[in-house]
């Protein structure tokens, strides 16, 4: 799993592509922990190239959100419609603010 992070003045942007499932969710968890352990609690997750998120992936994002709040927040950008539908169907959509583009998300911090 290739993960890129970029640092901005008030937040960090993290990006990966493809699937997030039981085989690689821990790699994402480690990348997010590398940020939160340094006190970087404002995180934008660019999901524009993410095609699939299994529950293992959602728990990584939920855990990160628990760590970030209330000092900061994890927000999600450009979620694929199928992923969004599944998230909303189980009622977990309310735990994340979502944006349509990275610029708006970064600008809101």
């Amino acid at each position, binding site marked *: 799993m290739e993960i890129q992070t970029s640092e901005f003045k008030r937040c960090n942007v993290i990006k990966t592509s493809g699937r997030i499932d*039981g085989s690689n969710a821990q790699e994402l968890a480690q990348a997010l922990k590398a940020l939160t352990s340094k006190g970087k609690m404002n995180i934008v997750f660019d999901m524009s190239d993410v095609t*699939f998120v*299994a*529950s293992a992936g959602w*728990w990584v994002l939920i855990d990160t*959100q628990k760590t970030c709040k209330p000092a900061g927040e994890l927000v999600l950008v450009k979620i694929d419609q199928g992923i969004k*539908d599944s998230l909303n169907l*189980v*009622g977990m959509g309310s735990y994340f603010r979502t944006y349509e583009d990275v610029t708006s998300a970064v600008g809101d911090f």
Partner: protein
Amino acid sequence: MPTKRFTCSLKNLEEICDFVGHWAAQAGFNESDIYAVQLAVDEATTNIMEHGYGRECPSRIDITCETLEDGLKVVIYDDADPFNPETVPEPEINVSLDDLKPRGLGIFLMRKMMDEVQYESSPDKGNTLTMIKRHAR
């Protein structure tokens, strides 16, 4: 009825999703429903690998896809320890973030994504998980 055999490795999840995704498309489902079938099967097979077999091993996970007049039937066979998803309680979802617990979400997703989820286990045939997705009327 196409059946494909996979070994117990989380690295096979993508290939498993590709296989059921292909048959969901053959059954005439749209992209959103194909995603739902893939997610349900991904969660089911992840549970077999992590909770049933409990480790990466050469043991089988056989998946059969059958197109129906009104949808798709996916049957998953394995020889792991019996694990009945129907006994797992639904996770509490509409709670505060702090109270959200990482338990049972995969099975909850399976039930939500599919129209029927049925589990059987027998000493000679192993575990059989049957899931059906029907076209919206």
